[in-house]
């Protein structure tokens, strides 16, 4: 017999799954298309750089290694950074969080359930994507243990991504528009996480600075785990993820407590 709290979560997750699959075409389009476009551009660009300049190696990456790296960034983008809870800002601005101030369930719980439902669907999308990449011979088959380790770490990092998104979404209690924050954060993430240019090609000083930020966790590290070229122990990486997740969650808690005092439930 499941406890009432577990039942609330499982029901919210299953309902979120139903809702996300309601608009199947839109859903797949917004889910797969943006990372696919980005990785196709970077894949083609790197292939061109290597072919035109007849370069054998850049920063320790051969042509094949670089292209494999780009393919795995697609998987990381889907699994780690695929979720978008920016609608929290809109929900706050238009008074749509009201229902969760009335129901005996938390707003965070509702968004977290929606995130979990999204990740469940995303696991299927990733499974299909990895199979397609292998079938197209764009990446070689990798050991099952490496794949499992990469997926597990990516899911953990996705929780960190969700915490950041939730935190930024809550800023709508103060800000009329949060899209500029979203834009800047996404730009910084794509640039500094190694989604386009591997971090190994950055200047040494910047690589050192980035080690103290969560950015490498958002692309570079999970990609290296998939590639089998990660030198850091998984436990250490997991602790790093948990540290940043805990920090973002504490900040979100503080911001929520301050922000909810300003909530006016406009539109009602």
């Amino acid at each position, binding site marked *: 017999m499941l406890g009432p709290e577990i039942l609330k979560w499982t029901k919210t997750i299953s309902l979120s799954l139903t809702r996300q699959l309601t608009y199947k075409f839109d859903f797949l389009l917004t889910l797969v298309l943006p990372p696919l476009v980005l990785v196709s551009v970077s894949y083609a660009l790197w292939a061109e750089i290597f072919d035109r300049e007849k370069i054998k190696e850049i920063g320790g990456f051969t042509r094949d290694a670089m292209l494999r790296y780009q393919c795995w960034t697609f998987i990381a983008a889907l699994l780690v950074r695929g979720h978008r809870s920016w609608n929290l800002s809109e929900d706050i601005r238009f008074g749509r969080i009201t229902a969760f*101030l009335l129901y005996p369930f938390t707003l965070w719980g509702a968004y977290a359930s929606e995130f979990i439902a999204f990740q469940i669907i995303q696991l299927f999308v990733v499974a299909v994507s990895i199979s397609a990449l292998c079938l197209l011979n764009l990446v070689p088959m990798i050991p099952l243990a490496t794949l499992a380790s990469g997926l597990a770490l990516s899911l953990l990092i996705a929780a960190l991504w969700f915490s950041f998104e939730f935190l930024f979404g809550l800023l709508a209690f103060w800000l009329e528009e949060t899209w500029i924050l979203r834009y800047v954060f996404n730009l910084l993430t794509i640039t500094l996480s190694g989604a386009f240019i591997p971090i190994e090609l950055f200047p040494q000083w910047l690589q050192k600075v980035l080690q103290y930020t969560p950015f490498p966790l958002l692309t570079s590290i999970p990609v290296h785990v998939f590639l089998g070229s990660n030198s850091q122990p998984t436990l250490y990486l997991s602790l790093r993820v948990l540290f940043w997740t805990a920090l973002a969650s504490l900040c979100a808690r503080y911001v929520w407590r301050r922000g909810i005092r300003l909530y006016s439930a406009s539109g009602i």
Partner: protein
Amino acid sequence: MQPSPSADSPAIVCDKLCKNYTSSKKEPGLSGTLKAFVAPERITVSAVRGFDLEVHPGEIVGLLGPNGAGKTTLMKMLTGIIEPSSGRAQVLGYEPSMRSRDLRRRIALVMGQKTQLWWDIPAFDSFQLLQRYYEISDQDFKERVDTLGFLLGVSKLFHVHLRKLSLGERMKMELMACLLHRPQALFLDEPTIGLDVIAQKQIRDFFSEYQGVHRTTIILTSHYMADINALCPRIVLVHGGRKRFDGAIRDFERILGKEKFVSMIFSKPVDTNHQIWRDLKPQWGPHGLSVELEICEESLRERTIEILSQFPVVDYSTEKLPIERVLKTLLTNPHLLPE
């Protein structure tokens, strides 16, 4: 966990409740935008001011007032959606702004202008989710869904996507969703807004029956006086964020004095400038063929005889002053309201 109040203690209490909203002022045009960006001018508006109220368990209270009077702000404070700027609110022994889960299990808010159900799934899926949130047993859930669905006549629509339902059908689903957990206190904010007269009456009849059985404490706001007349023995008038009247509906009608509302129909047009009409606040129909008058109860007989003897009256009726008319007069002449 706080205990629920005893039967004789108030279910809802407001003690000098205030809510101020602060926003920035922006003048029109680009220069206004730049000015607001560089040196924003903050303005504070008092939506609710020093509001006192006591509602006893099982009571139905109608909140009346024009748009912007502060009715919805009060509802938001009483349900814990927003926090008061000062003063104290208590609902079923709990402070709503603490948003305790125990209180949330005991109250419900129906908003006529805003759906709380999920738009893109059938209502029944939402009900099942609410069953989990409110920890309703399977047996109770089935019984309540069946009963409410039957009473509201929407059982056949449970599995239709909410977005495909009509406004009236959606509102009935909202009502069902809010009543599944049998709330002890129910806040109804314009539950019949935008509905046709038949749907309005169905919802009024439903609440009348529901409240008779469950003795739920209800606060209702509505611009339709038929809702207030049918459901609320007690009304509270809110104007400018302040309480301006609190009492029985019959006493509300007497604020303007003991006046009767007399309608007359004439066989031919009459002189609308005749001095007989002077003190009777006449409201003329087209071509002077009908009139509605307000006549003091004490002089009703002699004034009526006087008119009947001088004018070709073919039909007339007398009734107490309609609440719409009382409200309209008071809102356009707020100085008539008791301080």
